């Protein structure tokens, strides 16, 4: 436990370094928040270094068991430390709301409780988006490099989902090297995104902020009306592309970059399924909107359908149109898509396409076994056989996923919120998506929620982000038994 504290201390101190970014921006923009961020950085440094120094003699190699605690605590505590500048900079912001905002940032959810975003100091907006950005790379490294060591989700899935010739090319043999490679990939993709958005006409601040929140599939915006404020097809197109990149397994991006070819994508059966699902949904939504006369012509229908479907399905959560006003089928379908669409090893949330495919194949196998009781039917994804052990763990995951949603929805209902808002807010939070329906729909935000409801959503975001297992295991008796 104390060894974990040592790592957490170091981590907190390092996390403090991120404040350099808003500090620099604040100096340039002269928005008067330098002191606030400097104070936040100092607190992080003092607490972090102090903790690290105090627990120095307990330093040792971490065991898998420590990993679970570390993973859960790092997200909760980093959110806690990120609360500081928010509360200092916005007088009157409650701790509950500040924690929600920070957790929403770090879990790349993108639901906000703040209003009048365009008038926030630029450096504070930058900080909100920086949390997205760091949360995005955090989850990629977590999913592809750390969780597999703990035997949860990530690499097991990722190993099994690597079909064909790429399979043996493990990214790099060592975890730190893998993490570095992913960092590099992430940096390059972010830089390209910033430039593209800037060229499309955004200010530097908006370009940086939106690039951060799009690549991490977060969904924070510098505008109250989100992306609708720009009313630009080019910007929407660029964001769609960035979101699709973010929803793809980052190990593919790394391999593609290293080999300078698109071949790694061709072998990505998971990615292909994502694209098929998205394009059919876009097409269907377009036709539906067009037929129902929501928009005057096919082109406009296509534009809004494409952006909303990609934004919600990939769990980014940018908004251009109030999709709640669309035919009832669509908003519910969008929420459903957000549960299953993203790839493993992406910055998105939800069940992930790999698990969805696995579930479908498993159901198909069970049907086959009804007809041929003695048959031996392996489950394949992209031609690779998936070991039964993984199939069972995925089944358990999906069970826990629904239980989580169910329990938290009941909790929300108990606080007196209506069914649609409760359910959609929880699904949206667990999937780290952002906007939901009803009281927390695309036209509003989470600021209308009561304190209790806000806390429930914060928990939902953290549990969803950490692939449920890593959190739930902490609440089992076997975990704590020596």
């Amino acid at each position: 436990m104390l060894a974990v504290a040592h790592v957490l201390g170091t981590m907190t101190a390092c996390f403090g370094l991120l404040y350099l970014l808003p500090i620099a921006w604040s100096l340039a923009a002269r928005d008067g928040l330098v002191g606030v961020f400097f104070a936040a950085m100092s607190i992080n440094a003092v607490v972090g270094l102090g903790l690290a120094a105090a627990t120095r003699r307990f330093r040792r190699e971490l065991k898998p068991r420590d990993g679970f605690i570390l993973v859960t605590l790092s997200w909760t505590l980093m959110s806690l430390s990120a609360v500081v500048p928010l509360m200092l900079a916005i007088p009157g912001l409650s701790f509950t709301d500040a924690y929600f905002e920070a957790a929403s940032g770090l879990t790349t959810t993108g639901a906000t409780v703040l209003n009048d975003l365009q008038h926030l100091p630029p450096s504070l907006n930058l900080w909100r988006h920086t949390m997205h950005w760091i949360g995005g790379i955090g989850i990629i490294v977590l999913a592809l490099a750390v969780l597999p060591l703990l035997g949860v989700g990530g690499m097991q899935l990722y190993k099994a989902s690597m079909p064909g010739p790429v399979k043996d090319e493990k990214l790099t043999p060592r975890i730190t090297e893998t993490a570095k490679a992913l960092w590099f990939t992430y940096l390059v993709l972010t830089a390209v995104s910033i430039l593209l958005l800037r060229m499309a006409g955004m200010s530097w601040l908006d370009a940086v902020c939106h690039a951060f929140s799009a690549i991490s599939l977060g969904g924070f915006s510098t505008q109250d009306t989100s992306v609708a404020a720009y009313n630009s097809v080019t910007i929407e197109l660029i964001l769609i592309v960035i979101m699709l990149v973010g929803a793809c397994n980052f190990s593919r991006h790394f391999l593609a970059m290293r080999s300078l070819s698109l071949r790694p994508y061709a072998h990505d059966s998971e990615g292909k399924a994502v694209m098929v699902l998205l394009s059919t949904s876009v097409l269907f939504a377009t036709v539906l909107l067009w037929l129902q006369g929501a928009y005057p012509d096919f082109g406009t229908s296509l534009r809004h359908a494409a952006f909303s479907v990609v934004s919600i399905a990939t769990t980014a959560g940018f908004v251009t149109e109030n999709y709640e006003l669309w035919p009832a089928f669509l908003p519910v379908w969008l929420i459903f898509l957000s549960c299953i669409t993203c790839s493993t090893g992406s910055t998105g949330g939800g069940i992930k396409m790999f698990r969805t495919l696995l579930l479908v194949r498993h159901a198909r196998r069970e049907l086959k076994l009804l007809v041929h009781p003695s048959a031996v039917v392996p489950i394949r994804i992209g031609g690779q056989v998936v070991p039964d052990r993984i199939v069972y763990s995925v089944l358990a995951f999906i069970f826990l996923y629904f239980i989580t949603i169910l329990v938290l929805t009941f909790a929300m209902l108990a606080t007196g919120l209506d069914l649609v808002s409760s359910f959609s807010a929880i699904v949206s939070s667990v999937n780290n998506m952002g906007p939901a329906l009803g009281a927390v729909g695309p036209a509003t935000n989470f600021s209308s929620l009561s304190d209790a409801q806000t806390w429930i959503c914060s928990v939902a975001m953290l549990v969803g982000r950490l692939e449920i297992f890593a959190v739930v295991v902490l609440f089992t008796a076997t975990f704590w038994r020596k």
Partner: protein
Amino acid sequence: MKIVILGAGQVGRTAAYHLSREESNEVTVVDTNEEVLRDLQDRLDIRTVAGNAAYPSVLEAAGTASADIVVALTSSDEVNMMACEVAYTLYRTRTKIARIRSAEYTKHPKLFSDEALSVDVWISPEQLVTEYVAQLIKYPGALQVLDFADGRVRLVGIRARKGGLLVGQALRTLKEHHPSTEARVVAIYRAGRSVPPDGNTVIEENDEVFFLAAREDIRKFMSEIRKEESPARRVVIAGGGNIGLSLARRLEEQHHVKLIERDPKRARRISELLLNTIVLNGDAADEELLIEENIDSCDVFASLTNSEEANILSAMLAKRLGAKKVMALINKPSYADLMESGSIDIAISPQTITIGSLLAHVRRGDVVRVHSLRRGAAEALEAVVHGTDRTSRVVGRRVGDIPLPEGAAIGAVVRGEAVMIAHHDTMINNDDHVIVFLSDRRHVEQVERLFSGPGGR
């Protein structure tokens, strides 16, 4: 001809048996198991040497120095290749044949090219058997389908049944049914005895008829002899060994294939290798399993496990439960004879299938392909004739004028790409491939002499 056979397994023993029956061959068999060798020596007129087949000392003792052919048939691919290597390096043996089972080796033809391994010819019994069974499934009704001239000409063995247009009629009438295309009936077996076919021979029910035809004409002529059967769609394979697996792989694209394997681990492994086959874990002789899997609606049931008794039993059971056609892999010739006249439609004999590819290299003259038939009693071979009308007794003559021994018939001539069904007046040219059917293989040496070119070989 001096022949050294390495390995006295099933294939090795059968090869020794077939080769030693011919007077002119001197056969030596090498194996590590002395008991097997002693037993073999008691039954066959051969020499035996005990020892590791790849050791130079053992090869030396087996007389490899003066041998014409080394046939390496041990159970180990590596030993076989090494033995060929040693035989060539130390004794410059002319022809080296090795059994290579693993596709890891055989899928790289470069390994067996001139500058690489000293293996002139590799044979893979599993592959040959797979091919054989696949042909039988492709031509429902056939007892045997054998390729000549790279498959352009095929010899088909088929049992006459009521409903065939030609049954009860003289062979002469064949031409009236199909004026434009041709086939040649080369042999008819009635109640186990050969009936020399000519224009007046009447085909009776239950006759075993062998005919030669170009690949594309086969189906048409099969319908002459028995009612045309619909092509097989549903195939059940019992036994997931190498043969079962590779057969399923070949068939699964175009057929509904089910494969029954008893060992759960092996079943799991196979299921991962096969994409469209339903792999069932269970006993092929389990009546409930067969009924559960609708054995009564299956077109072909092929029992291909290692145990011939199990194959016979499960095939008989499948037949009784309603499988349209059953095949069983049977090693013992006596079992095969017993079964084929009874409840099993086709007995597949791996040795007979394999031995043909060995015989082609033992025959004198330029023989490119040999198929052993009817458990080795008959033989069909494809020979290339060389020379001029002066130097050869075949070239420049008409088929009718060639002094063939009794029971032998020239069925077809392949000239370049063209396939010609032989008539009395077909002229034979230099470099023609001639396909000869011998209903009595004791005359094979006469045929060899006839076809070996100037000076023989």
